[in-house]
């Protein structure tokens, strides 16, 4: 971790310490927002500060699909593949992302920039088919638009609106 990351994590721990165990999930979410994932040494710190047994910290961290106990891409492309998106052509979107990113679902690019995931329903079905890049939702995409978007993400550019 860089010194500034160290400091950020320390601030997060101070913020959630008064909550004890009830601060565990928000604390892990905040830490991950800063570091991109949940490294073991930081999880151990979290457990010690909040008074949560370390095994339980791990149990919680591995329970939620948006928490990562291994490094993932700084940008996570989550393509919805659920029923509403399927009914609107999501397989073509997924294929476009695979091709443009050169990644299979679950894979991270070697430079650590992008991870591709297939995701259950994202809850934006009125905009199907959709995908998310980190926290941002992109809806009503056709394969060409998805490919443009994925190429921009891969190139480290801001996603096109």
């Amino acid at each position: 971790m860089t010194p500034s990351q160290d400091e950020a994590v320390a601030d997060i721990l101070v913020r959630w310490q008064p909550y004890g165990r009830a601060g565990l999930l928000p604390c892990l979410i905040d830490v991950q927002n800063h570091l991109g994932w949940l490294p073991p040494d930081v999880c151990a710190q979290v457990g010690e500060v909040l008074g949560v047994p370390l095994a339980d910290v791990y149990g919680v961290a591995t329970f939620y699909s948006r928490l990562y106990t291994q490094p993932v891409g700084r940008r996570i492309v989550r393509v919805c593949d659920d029923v509403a998106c399927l009914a609107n052509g999501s397989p073509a979107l997924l294929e476009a992302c695979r091709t443009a990113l050169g990644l299979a679902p679950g894979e991270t690019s070697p430079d650590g920039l992008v991870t591709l995931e297939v995701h259950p329903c994202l809850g934006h079905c009125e905009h199907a088919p959709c995908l998310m890049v980190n926290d941002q939702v992109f809806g009503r995409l056709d394969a060409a638009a998805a490919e443009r978007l994925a190429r921009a993400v891969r190139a480290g550019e801001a996603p096109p609106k």
Partner: protein
Amino acid sequence: MTASADRPTWQAIPGYEAHLLRRVGQVDPTSLADYEAHGGYRALRAALEMTPAEIIEMVKASGLVGRGGAAFPTGIKWESAARQPVTPRYVVCNADESEPGTFKDRVLMEGDPFAIVEAMTIAAYAVGAEQGYIYVRGEFRAAYERLANAVAAAREAGYLGKRVLGSDFSFDIELRRGAGAYVCGEETALFESIEGKRGMPRQKPPFPTERGLFGRPTVINNVETFANVPHIVLNGPDWFRRIGPPDAPGPKLFCVSGAVERPGVYEGPMSVTLRQLVEVCGGMRPGRKIQAVLVGGAAGTFVPAEHLDTPVSFEALRAIGASLGSGAVLVVDDSVDMLEVVERITRFFAHESCGKCYPCQLGTQRQWEIVRRWQAGHHRPDDAERLQDIAHAMREASICGLGQTAASALMSVLPRMVTRFEGGNHVSASDADH
């Protein structure tokens, strides 16, 4: 294009007045002043003039039932929590909307967040709670930010915090985010999650009103359920009962998606039929025909085209073996392979099972595997019987609603799936082992 960019994807069904969606798109969802200018916080002021018992009576008399899927009477829930001798008590808003095909709560949170905060405050006054939580699905960043802003603005203005509006009643709200777990929409799993544990459901009883969050009496309601409360307080239970059929009073949000022209959130009475909902959305895409409608999301059932004239009231849907659940109406057209759809649903449950109880932990996996094998063209003569037994075990013996409904959609199309394989592609049990 980003979500919510072009045309509104929410509206009342023609000929019907919007209540829950009234302010969505009409007010600045970040402005308390705008909310107040559009009738906001009148209900709380009115509520504080009443006794808590009077409010509970009103909600009971309205016939409002939970809009998250279980349809439990809201007033009875509140009364039960208020009767508990134990304090503190909690009010929790279940905003972990994760049922596939459901997005109404997100639209309310993004478009009218103060209404949720106001409604929770009324509920807290009614049941004697001083602390509330809103647990927002992790994917809903905009909704989370709008709610966080609303809570802060309400606190600043004295609508939350010590001595709300100068009364003796104090109440505040904290926000929590989910992190990718459908099961946390189950109320006791949601409590576990807030408590810093794995989001695994608890065995009920005890029910949340008795021992809920942190083991204390807790009222937990869905976002849409809360959204009804200010209207009931302002307009009275009789007004509420005049909307919709007698067995399903009040306004309802329907999430219509899939192969329709204008998918979106539509508000109307529960006397509307599935066909009307499809028509309100501009009907099917050109040249497409309805294959089936998935009512209630992944936890729901497929309703075949011949039942489209069924009203979406509880009774009418029950009569055809369906349930409105969270309000998802997902239209599948004839261009989609039903086997693909069923694969998504079974995969969903295998992915989202928490793994606590055996029927669901193992059954969701096995039913997904069997469907995947069908996709690969392999079918065993005993598949239907095996799936029916898995469905029985999950429905009857699982701890929570996830397992209890994990086979519903598949079971509703099982005969069609089996017919498809008749006459070919059988593999013997020993072949399938490999």
